[in-house]
């Protein structure tokens, strides 16, 4: 136990505060990209697809580095991340057909 917390402490701070500056920078770059995509007019499907990918990238950066999940034990990572996949499946499976059925009725 002693040993493992020691390892976690060290792994959590590979390069001091610098990593937070780097993550902050990329979060801002992605945000500017998002605003840029909205301001220039691109096809709707491309807009939605790229915005969702950029949002997931930001989320991954925040969870992995700001919330330190990258440096936690794998059991905790799985406990937090796997429910999200089930959540996505359940939401799509139960709400999706209802919301999309309108397209066929219209």
């Amino acid at each position: 136990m002693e040993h493992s917390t020691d390892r976690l402490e060290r792994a959590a701070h590979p390069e001091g505060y610098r990593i937070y500056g780097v993550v902050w920078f990329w979060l801002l770059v992605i945000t500017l990209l998002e605003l840029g995509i909205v301001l220039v007019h691109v096809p709707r499907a491309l807009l939605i697809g790229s915005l969702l990918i950029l949002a997931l990238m930001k989320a991954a950066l925040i969870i992995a580095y700001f919330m330190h999940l990258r440096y936690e034990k794998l059991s905790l990572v799985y406990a937090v991340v796997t429910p999200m996949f089930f959540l996505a499946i359940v939401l799509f499976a139960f709400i999706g057909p209802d919301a999309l059925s309108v397209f066929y009725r219209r």
Partner: protein
Amino acid sequence: MAHEAVEHNQVLASDWGGGRSPFGVGWPKLMMWVFLVSDTLTFAGLLAGYGALRLSLGRWPAQAEIFDLYLVGAMTFILICSSATMAVAVSAARRGDRGRVIPFLLLTALGGLLFLTGQAYEWTKFIHEGARLSGNPWGVPQFSATFFIITGFHGGHVSVGVLYLLATALRWGLRRIQPESVEIAGLYWHFVDLVWVFIFTLLYLI
């Protein structure tokens, strides 16, 4: 019998045998993670409801013309900065850099307050333009209803977060808490930023 005792000892010695921490984090921090997972379900429900409404209606006001994207962009910028200062505060607490914790916690709280000011301004403007929970001048009542409920829910989280940060700063100053408590407050604050990523994308941009 001897064999059973050996097996029993093996179970106890394993990670999940009890008396250990199988997730490699303390109890309070694990509980904050559990809370955040459940809070994710709350926001996912709200956002999924919004998506289902919007898809099934088939028409939606051109929100890029209604919202002030520069204001929302600035609010997003502030929230990201406050998340970064929070990360520094947590890191400082963990490495024993005591003097840096309180200034960065207060900076983070200030970021939260600025965000809330922006949101208050946005809501005021929106309400003056005639938006209500039950209807709005743009013809789709669900548009303002989902906006107020989702951003209101998030704003509530930010408000609670600011109080939480101030309490954490105070208790750290009085030396009542361990670095782990600062870290737990940090998890909550980053989560608020995380939720905003999706609200910003789904409500304002798409």
